[in-house]
């Protein structure tokens, strides 16, 4: 960061627009673009809660918040519970809309805090290890590193220590945002929404800080399109070896285990594997680690008893992990302040003493807040208990399963409490007759994601999860997949290459499959959608559990999609950016398109960049199994950058979507910044946050949400071609709303010319102007004239 002392002032310092004077230092807002030239600071460096409110209101004029209350009541304070049904207000005066928006804000604050506290922990840990001045160098091909930090903070971080400024800013903002959730603060649903959008943005920032810190300090792949394929699946683990399983998101403890195993030369003696993002990040650190799979594998794998030691860090971990581990005599090591599990803090204890206490069952587990010590203790314990544990019989055998299943009274409650109402009762009934096929069908593709709700409901205490784990044990051979290791950011050179085709529409879209595994009908849906769009020349980006889910699918020839498609950020590329925190590189790539391709300055220039992305970058996020508060924050954050997101059906439980209304034509008008004209636009993108009921609906919607006002006619033809194709495939017809997206005849895809012309005629279509610089922002001055306006 450039902090210029008074004696170093440039000559024009006193003329510079945004001189920030704060007690203690004088900062000249001098920042560098790609060329190294100083660029002007935009209007909103370090935007405070209300600074981007106008932009939010513009978004919400078009994409009005749609509320689906998940609960009619509020129980946040002791006036309550208050019933907010159908027009009633709470004792504090809040109505149901504002209450839903408040809950969304709360979820986004929690999500942003989870990512950012994780980032803060990593940052301080890595500064301690590598030093404050450790350079942020993402290699030859990435000059515009940290596009989110550049845009929001107004400068590029040069060292690990520099990241602290962005972190401090983020933490302050999140505090203000969280405070607005208190009783008797905000009263307007749209202002709650504006704050939620800010919280989402802070989430995006926190993730970028975390991922950049770990990439540079732990030497993870730096935008490497050829990142190696790593092994994945329960069948890849050698069960004869001691096994350390890492669950969660924070790489530091997993890295501690890997380091210890390497230092001691134990690579061939111990298996280190991971579930969820911890798995992704340890394989970005060291490719010998193995990925078990996404979070849906958690209870299946723990119940199988294969792991000798379970190292938990933070986020998305089963909170009953200690109880589950105890049942099969595995040992748990908690490693962060986020999850201590009631365990004794032995951080300062001698490692061998901790090992002794654990193997002698003097303690149930240990809290160790030092990653090096975690590595040593976890490895030593696993090596010492593995043999004895190998003798334990942890799962019922198939005969026993049949006997247990015979207890079933067919009460049906297991299916009723299942989040997806899957036919688990039928599977149990089948097993009682020795037919395990129904249970296998639910095991495959995580149709049952082993949440455990059915098992605890069962009036006969049938151990349904153990039965599932046993079924999986029989299918180990099939469970061998792979995934391209998370590559981190997109390179500048890639952006230069695809910037124009994306903005002009020649590449029909960039689709990002992110998020968790609350899939409505199993994991394959995500891979099928990814495959569909890869085959159609889209760029497919992925991260986190989505990236693992995609790797678990094999096509007709037996290849995973990672084997079939390259990791290039280009048409037909399947780009795994990494873990949840790596999601930051997805809006990051869109921001870089605005900067590198369109030469838009980033620094302090949030609105202009987001307006550019909304109107010109055909990107769409898909969080098909989103369940977490982090996913709420991620989606809300990218929405603020102008990127639409499609959720799975469970996404409606977030309580709020942002839906456009195609019947309200006035909401789609655009300001053409080049000509000063107001022009009739089109519903592109039609929605900002959408929830689809099934994969078929989602697929068609995703294709449609990649359409942008800026498409050239050639690009529009391509996009419409895919939209019509998919509509025909999944709905059987040419979409009737296609006329809305035809501006001039040249926009009509050749293949469907006749059908589309018929629709145009029927609808009384007339050509309209194609805006040159479409925008939803206000003109700087009054518009010259109103063209085509109704």
């Amino acid at each position: 960061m450039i902090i210029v002392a008074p004696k170093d002032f440039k000559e024009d310092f006193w003329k510079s627009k945004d001189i920030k004077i704060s007690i203690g230092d004088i900062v000249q807002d001098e920042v560098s673009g790609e060329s190294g030239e100083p660029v002007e600071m935009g209007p909103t460096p370090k935007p405070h809660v209300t600074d981007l409110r106008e932009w939010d209101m513009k978004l919400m004029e078009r994409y009005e918040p749609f509320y689906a209350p998940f609960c009619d009541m509020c129980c946040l304070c002791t006036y309550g519970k208050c019933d907010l049904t159908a027009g009633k207000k709470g004792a504090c005066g809040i109505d149901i809309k504002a209450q839903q928006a408040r809950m969304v804000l709360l979820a986004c604050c929690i999500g942003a805090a989870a990512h950012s506290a994780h980032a803060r922990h990593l940052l301080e840990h890595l500064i301690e290890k590598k030093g404050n001045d450790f350079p942020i160098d993402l290699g030859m091909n990435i000059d515009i590193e940290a596009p989110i930090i550049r845009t929001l903070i107004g400068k590029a971080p040069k060292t690990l220590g520099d990241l602290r400024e962005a972190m401090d800013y983020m933490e302050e903002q999140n505090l203000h945002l969280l405070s607005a959730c208190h009783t008797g603060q905000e009263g307007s649903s749209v202002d709650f929404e504006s704050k939620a959008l800010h919280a989402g943005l802070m989430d995006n920032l926190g993730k970028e800080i975390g991922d950049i810190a770990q990439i540079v300090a732990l030497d993870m792949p730096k935008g490497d399109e050829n990142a190696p394929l790593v092994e994945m699946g329960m069948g890849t683990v050698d069960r004869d070896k001691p096994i350390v399983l890492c669950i969660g998101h924070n790489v530091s403890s997993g890295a501690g285990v890997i380091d210890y195993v390497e230092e001691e030369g134990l690579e061939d003696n111990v298996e280190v594997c991971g579930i969820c993002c911890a798995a992704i990040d340890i394989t970005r650190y060291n490719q010998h680690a193995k990925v078990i799979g996404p979070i849906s594998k958690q209870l299946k794998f723990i119940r199988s008893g294969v792991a000798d030691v379970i190292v938990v860090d933070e986020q998305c971990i089963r909170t009953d992990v200690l109880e589950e581990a105890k049942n099969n005599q595995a040992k748990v090591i908690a490693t962060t302040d986020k999850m201590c599990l009631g365990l004794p803090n032995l951080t300062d204890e001698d490692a061998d003493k901790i090992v002794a206490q654990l193997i002698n069952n003097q303690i149930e587990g240990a809290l160790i807040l030092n990653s090096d010590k975690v590595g040593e203790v976890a490895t030593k314990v696993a090596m010492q208990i593995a043999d004895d544990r190998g003798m334990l019989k942890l799962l019922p055998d198939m005969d026993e399963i049949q006997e247990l299943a015979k207890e079933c009274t067919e009460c049906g409650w297991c299916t009723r409490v299942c989040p997806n109402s899957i036919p688990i009762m039928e599977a149990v009934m089948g097993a009682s007759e020795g037919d395990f096929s129904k249970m296998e069908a639910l095991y495959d593709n995580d149709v049952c994601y082993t949440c455990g709700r059915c098992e605890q409901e069962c009036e006969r205490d049938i151990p349904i999860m153990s039965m599932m784990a046993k079924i999986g044990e029989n299918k180990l051979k099939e469970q061998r997949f792979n995934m391209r290791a998370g590559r981190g950011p997109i390179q500048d050179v890639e952006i230069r290459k695809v910037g124009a085709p994306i903005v002009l529409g020649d590449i029909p879209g960039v689709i990002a499959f992110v998020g968790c595994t609350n899939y409505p009908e199993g994991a394959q849906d995500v891979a099928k959608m990814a495959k569909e769009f890869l085959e159609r020349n889209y760029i497919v980006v992925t991260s986190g559990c989505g990236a693992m889910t995609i790797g678990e699918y094999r096509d007709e020839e037996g290849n995973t999609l990672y084997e079939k498609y390259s990791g290039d950020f280009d048409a037909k590329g399947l780009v795994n950016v990494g873990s949840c925190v790596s999601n930051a590189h997805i809006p990051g790539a869109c921001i870089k398109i605005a900067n590198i391709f369109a030469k838009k300055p980033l620094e302090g220039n949030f609105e202009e960049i987001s307006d550019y992305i909304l109107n010109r970058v055909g990107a769409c996020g898909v969080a098909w199994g989103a369940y977490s508060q982090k996913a709420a924050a991620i989606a809300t954050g990218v929405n603020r950058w102008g990127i639409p997101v499609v959720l799975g059906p469970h996404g409606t439980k977030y309580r709020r979507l942002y839906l456009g209304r195609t019947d309200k034509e006035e909401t789609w008008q655009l300001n053409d910044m080049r000509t000063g004209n107001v022009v009739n636009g089109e519903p592109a993108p039609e929605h900002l946050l959408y929830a689809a009921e099934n994969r078929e609906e989602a697929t068609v919607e995703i294709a449609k949400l990649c359409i942008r006002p800026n498409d050239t006619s050639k690009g529009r033809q391509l996009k419409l071609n895919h939209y019509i194709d998919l509509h025909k495939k999944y709905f059987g017809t040419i979409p009737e709303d296609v006329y809305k997206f035809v501006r001039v005849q040249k926009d009509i895809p050749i293949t469907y010319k006749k059908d589309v012309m018929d629709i145009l005629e029927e609808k009384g279509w007339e050509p309209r102007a194609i805006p040159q610089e479409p925008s939803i922002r206000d003109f700087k001055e009054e518009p010259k004239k109103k063209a085509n306006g109704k």
Partner: protein
Amino acid sequence: MNERIIPWQPTVIAGPKQAMLVTPETAKMMLKKAKRPLFVIGPLVTGDPIMKLTMDISEHWDLPIVTTGDAYKTFGDRGIKTTRYGVVEIVNLLKDPDWKGIKGEGQHDLVMFIGCIYYIASQGLSTLKHFAPHLKTLTICKFFHSNADASFPNMNDDEWLKYLEKMKSD
């Protein structure tokens, strides 16, 4: 508590206002009273006998059909023309008192649902419960929907088919 009126997925229970349990007779009364009813059919309706029954019901009561998910194709393949919306889109339109309805004749006053995925339907019904005082919601799935204004109870298939059969006539 009567098992038939515990919401099918029990945790969708949202608050004190619960749907009224209805029989086909009451459901038909509601249809008779309605001026501009609408039938929303979801992707769980995939084949006969349910498909045939829904078609007969819509014909008998002259109900325009909106299909959600990919039900549009299921019905389209049988030659039945419906209007396609995402379930969140149609709910969004239904909650707007100024929306002109499927036929452009005015907002609907009764919306009858069948075959949408239970929990997303429950969320949509919640939206309408809170924000659409201008219309009533009725669900004729075999699951009790507490967020509707009126719902069939939880039933087994046999009983449900009988209920639907009764819906085909006055």
